[in-house]
């Protein structure tokens, strides 16, 4: 019974990790600007993230190493730093975006500008990490995040043409605005395939003392949880494609995104949107801050755990405190949260190979994985998709910047 409960909670956690500010912003923009034509990117990203999440859980269960710990041991401190510094900068921007998402949700409900909410949100997140434990952080926000099902309900109520939706699952070239199309494509991939998710998942597996007996439930959690998260993201894309695309509305601000739920669900739609945005972003903010604290603590051999008082892992606690405090400053300065979100997701795509390629090497290393090494399908899917995302991002980001 306890194991079933763990799997169920694991699935909810995966949903929380999947759908957050990046996925909501990028899929809403994609649906508004290109209808269903970027649905294939969502499918591609989901496949890749299922493989990666399953691998990070399997690595920890079999080798008893977290992903970052194994990377440092296998590839050395120099490589660890090389991959950690760019990742840390990108995650800091992602964290600011997540805080911005929660602050925006509060603005929508109260009318008070998002800048004013940045510090209260950061303090609430910090208190939860400081006073709470891993179970509370993982499961509390994930269960509340089920409010995001509102996107699927809205999408169904808008009666999308299933033929068009299915056609969108086949890769296609843009008819116009190629730079915008590819920039959004890599932003979606960056939002879905976020390295912090694997770091956090892998660290959670070690904190929960997984072993080989957890391999089956890990696989089930990765497939079902990520697929369920993908259904929610498809809900966002579909609702945007049905409400905004035919009217020629491009999503420039989060205030516009709320209109797709109010169109389908009326007045409660606004509160459901604010709830879904706020809770999923709050959960993701905790995961990003903790994910990076885990990376540094495990890389440098510091104590780390959320399950004992912060004084027992002072440097670990200092990292997430510093990350969340400084990211809140960025939001309080009034940077546009939507622009920052989409841009940081595209940057995430650029840095993907720094994590995924050594990760694949580890997963094929007999010394770490023994008989549980990767199959060729997982290797090809992850290497192919992450290299593709990175290459497109390297071209699309400068083009998008130059295009204004």
């Amino acid at each position: 019974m306890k194991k079933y409960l763990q799997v169920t909670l694991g699935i909810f956690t995966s949903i929380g990790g999947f759908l957050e500010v990046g996925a909501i912003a990028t899929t809403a923009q994609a649906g508004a600007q290109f209808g269903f034509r970027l649905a294939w990117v969502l499918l591609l990203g989901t496949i890749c993230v299922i493989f990666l999440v399953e691998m990070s859980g399997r690595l920890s269960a079999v080798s008893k190493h977290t992903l970052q710990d194994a990377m440092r041991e296998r590839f050395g401190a120099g490589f660890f730093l090389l991959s950690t510094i760019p990742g840390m900068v990108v995650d800091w921007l992602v964290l600011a975006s997540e805080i911005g998402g929660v602050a925006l949700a509060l603005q929508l409900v109260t009318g008070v500008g998002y800048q004013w909410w940045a510090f209260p949100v950061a303090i609430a997140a910090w208190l939860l990490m400081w006073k709470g434990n891993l179970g509370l952080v993982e499961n509390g926000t994930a269960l509340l995040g089920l409010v995001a099902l509102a996107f699927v309900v809205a999408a169904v109520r808008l009666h999308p043409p299933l033929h068009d939706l299915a056609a969108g699952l086949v890769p296609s070239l843009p008819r116009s605005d190629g730079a915008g199309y590819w920039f959004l494509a890599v932003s979606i991939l960056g939002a879905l395939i976020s390295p912090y998710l694997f770091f956090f998942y892998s660290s959670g597996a070690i904190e929960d003392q997984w072993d080989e007996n957890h391999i089956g439930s890990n696989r089930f959690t990765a497939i079902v949880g990520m697929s369920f998260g993908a259904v929610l993201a498809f809900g966002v894309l579909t609702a945007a494609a049905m409400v905004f695309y035919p009217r020629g509305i491009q999503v420039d601000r989060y205030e516009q995104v709320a209109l797709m739920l109010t169109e389908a669900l009326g007045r409660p739609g606004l509160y459901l949107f604010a709830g879904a945005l706020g809770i999923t972003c709050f959960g993701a903010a905790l995961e990003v801050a903790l994910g990076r604290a885990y990376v540094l603590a495990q890389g440098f051999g510091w104590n780390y755990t959320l399950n004992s008082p912060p004084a027992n892992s002072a440097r670990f606690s200092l990292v997430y405190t510093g990350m969340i405090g400084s990211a809140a400053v960025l939001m309080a300065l009034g940077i546009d949260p939507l622009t920052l979100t989409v841009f940081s997701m595209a940057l995430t795509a650029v840095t993907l190979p720094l994590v995924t390629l050594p990760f694949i090497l580890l997963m094929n290393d007999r010394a770490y994985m023994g008989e549980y090494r990767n199959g060729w399908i997982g290797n090809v899917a992850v290497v192919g998709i992450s290299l593709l995302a990175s290459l497109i991002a390297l071209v699309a980001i400068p083009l998008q910047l130059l295009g204004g």
Partner: protein
Amino acid sequence: MVRRVPLFSRLVLIGAALVAGCTKSPEARTEEAAMRLTSWEATARLLEEQRARGAVPEQFVRQVLRAAAEAREEATAKRRAAGAP
């Protein structure tokens, strides 16, 4: 004798050509700003429809209208900067 161009220099040249070829002209920028204006006009129409149905609270309507006004100002400034009347 043809002098070989080093790989790095070739990549830089290709990148520069791509970027130069894809940089938006003033006309394209004007068109983009016009599209943004149209997009916000459509947003305002959708908002009015929803307001008439009582689907959105007044406090939210004010937020969207404020965002629309800011976006319109920004788009108009971009059109002017691109040389449009």
